[in-house]
């Protein structure tokens, strides 16, 4: 054991040394696990910022076994310090171990019921493990889970803003998008939530999994809140399993959506009352209530299309509210949120609907359009790169070659008809 420690201390200097160290550590892994109880004192001999890889192996072996309550908080401190001071390159040589340690960290934090303690370290961990900002690690969903449980949504937003393109495990993506959707809903950023949930629901999956089902339920509700309608069919690129089965598994929500589209608030409310338990058991009751209130908003918005001025009493009648006072409250809230443009004349009890004052003539607007164009060009380029990569992929060529016509006189490609890998 001591020999190992000295080796770690010695070989943690240069990159080639670290590689040979890694081989040594891999061989010694089993013995480390065997003597896990004896390891904690050795940890003090190692410096996490210099001997990160070794420290990691030791740490992983230490935490492998069951941990008692007293040990738990001391371990938490050790792990947190390690995460903040470790060296990213060394960590990336043994990503599984790192992920393992962090997951155990999360479990401990949850056990102690202090998720807030885990948020910052987990964020640092992600940043160190990620190969690039487009990379999704297994730690992303854990981080989001901690944020959700500790209700600090804002920290999560920085992670959610990044575009994800590379994924290690599909399950990570599903969880990430699902939790991300929930956080966005909490922050009332319904467009982002819709995007994330849409990714879960339409992701390629051979069988429908539970995450997708739950995500679909929320997807319906957020779709109603944000767009006021729910497309009855999933887009064609969703997996066939999803297209067939998701709707059957979320029956009450689909019926809620169709009741919403009929436009009668009274019917919608009775339906919600009748199925309250189901919604509650899915923890979606709050979202359902938001959907119902969004219906009032949509009806008021529709009025702006037909009327220039309307009395508060009329608004209350048409939108099926109880009194002009309520109508005034709703309209006021919508003006504040920027959902409609209007002025309320309290003397006459009239509301005057105005046009959108945006003239699209300001510098800010030009900048906005310009940045949008730049972003789209980057994304487009990425798409082209991927397309090219795909066309050179041997698997693709094999399949394309097989499906070509046997005798094609006009086409003297170099791609052979049968392509053996």
């Amino acid at each position, binding site marked *: 054991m001591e020999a190992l420690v000295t080796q770690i201390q010695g070989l943690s200097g240069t990159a080639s040394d670290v590689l040979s160290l890694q081989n040594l550590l891999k061989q010694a892994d089993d013995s480390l696990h065997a003597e896990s109880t004896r390891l904690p004192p050795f940890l003090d001999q190692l410096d996490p910022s210099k001997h990160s890889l070794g420290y990691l192996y030791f740490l992983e072996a230490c935490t492998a076994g069951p941990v008692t309550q007293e040990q738990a908080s001391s371990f938490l401190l050790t792990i947190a310090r390690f995460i903040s001071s470790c060296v990213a390159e060394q960590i990336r040589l043994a990503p599984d171990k790192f992920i393992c340690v962090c997951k155990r960290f999360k479990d401990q934090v949850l056990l102690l019921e202090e998720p807030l303690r885990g948020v910052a370290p987990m964020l640092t961990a992600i940043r160190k493990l990620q190969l690039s900002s487009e990379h999704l690690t297994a730690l992303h969903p854990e981080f989001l889970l901690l944020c959700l449980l500790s209700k600090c949504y804002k920290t999560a937003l920085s992670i959610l803003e990044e575009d994800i393109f590379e994924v290690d495990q599909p399950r990570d993506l599903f969880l990430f998008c699902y939790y991300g959707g929930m956080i966005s809903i909490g922050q009332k950023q319904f467009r982002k939530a819709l995007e994330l949930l849409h990714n879960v629901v339409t992701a390629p999956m051979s069988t429908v999994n539970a995450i997708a089902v739950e995500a679909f339920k929320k997807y319906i509700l957020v779709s109603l809140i944000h767009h006021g309608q729910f497309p009855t069919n999933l887009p064609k690129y969703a997996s066939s399993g999803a297209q067939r089965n998701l709707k059957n598994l979320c029956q009450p929500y689909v019926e809620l959506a169709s009741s919403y589209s009929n436009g009668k608030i009274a019917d919608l409310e009775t339906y919600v009352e009748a199925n309250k338990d189901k919604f509650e058991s899915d923890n979606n009751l709050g979202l359902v209530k938001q959907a119902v209130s969004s219906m009032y908003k949509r009806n008021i918005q529709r009025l702006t299309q*037909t009327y220039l001025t309307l009395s508060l009493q009329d608004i209350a009648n048409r939108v099926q509210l109880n009194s002009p006072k309520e109508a005034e409250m709703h309209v006021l809230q919508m003006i504040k949120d920027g959902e409609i443009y209007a002025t309320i004349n309290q003397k006459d009890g009239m509301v005057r609907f105005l046009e959108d004052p945006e003239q699209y003539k300001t510098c800010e607007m030009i900048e906005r359009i310009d940045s949008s164009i730049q972003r789209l060009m980057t994304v487009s380029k990425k798409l082209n790169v991927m397309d090219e990569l795909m066309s050179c992929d041997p*698997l693709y060529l094999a399949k394309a070659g097989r499906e070509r016509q046997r005798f094609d006189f006009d086409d003297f490609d170099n791609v052979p008809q049968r392509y053996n890998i």
Partner: protein
Amino acid sequence: MDGEEDASNLMMEANSTGGVDEAPLSSTTTRRNRPIISGEPLDIEAYAGLYTGRTKINRLIFIASHCDNPAMELEALRMASDEIKKGENTQLYREVVQKIEGRLGPNYEMDTAWCSMIELKAEQRKEKLESELNSYRTNLIKESIRMGYNDFGDFYYAHGALGDAFKSYVRTRDYCTTSKHIIQMCLSAILVSIEMVQFSNVSSYVSKAEQTPEALDPPTTAKLCCAAGLAHLEAKKYKLAARKFLEVGLELGNSYSEVIVPQDVATYGGLCALASFDRTELKATILSLLSPAPPLFSIHNKVIDNINFRDFLELVPEVRELINDFYSSHYASCLEYLGNLKPNLILDIHLYDHVETLYDQIRNKALIQYTLPFVSVDMRMMADAFKTSVAGLEKELEALITDNQIQARIDSHNKILYARHADQRNATFQRVLQTGNEFDRDVRAMLLRANLLKHDCNLKASRKV
């Protein structure tokens, strides 16, 4: 349709005789010259006098079952049973007698003797026809087989077995040699289909008849146009129906009275045209005919052909006035005419379930046409013009605006309608930004999915290896 009822009323008063045996044909010619002011309750005898054959009976039964007036109902049923007794349809007779329920006295109770006599005769005739047909079939004489099937068809039709009649008529097709035969077959098939209310068959047989290589004589073309028009009407394709009805030539006369009469052609055509044509088409096809001056040679063909429709419209002056008013924006009187015509139109066997839709369409067109030339419209004046309340008008306008048929906004406080034209520039900017966002979102999602699939493929590939 209303025209001749009123005319006949006046005539009845003049002659002081009434009853079914009044010669209907002579009265139609005199009716054309009577000016009419407003609609009155349907005079059943005059109405039924226009038609012959089975449609007369069907129409009478329909009126009986749909009108509110018990006197009218009984009158209709009485005439129906009289007419049926002249024919051989025992099934229909039984139905009508049941409906009468003995209210018309002993003459109109179930005459079982007559029924059994008719049925016996029917059996005998059927056997005779069958044996004849078999003999023809063994002899393989095409013409005789055709006539045999035709006779069968007529026989079934007279006895009310419409499905069998249709089948028999269709069977003659294989034995038709000249186009005349084909046309005859088509016409018979159309007749039966109309009665069975299977208008898809009607359309197909009309097109079949029109495809015959020989030129058709005018009455036949007219009949086919009417049938096609009815088919379109039933399918709620009002524009096509209007066009077909407008093509019907005057040669129709009374030759198709077992299906439709000129008054019907005028009414159906006029109402459908009003509901579905836009202003230019309306003017070109109908209104040019309402001007008193005769057209010159050089005028476009469509107009000349439609001199005929002017004569049709003369038969139903109310419809003519109605169209005129609509075109010249006298909406109040137009809608008043429509209201007057409505009770009688509901009793029409082909039109009754289209009346509401057509009326709504006409009213909506009137509203839209009213607001079109103005930048702002005082809703109180508009409500007066349409004989409705401001609140009701507001509701109708709201529906039309939501439907995007009127581009305007309502100032509910001052009750003014302001025309509103969308700002193209702003709308374009908005759409551009939105499209950009959607593209971005979709491409990113697509790249993500591609990555997932690639991961899946790599897994599979690594498993294979």
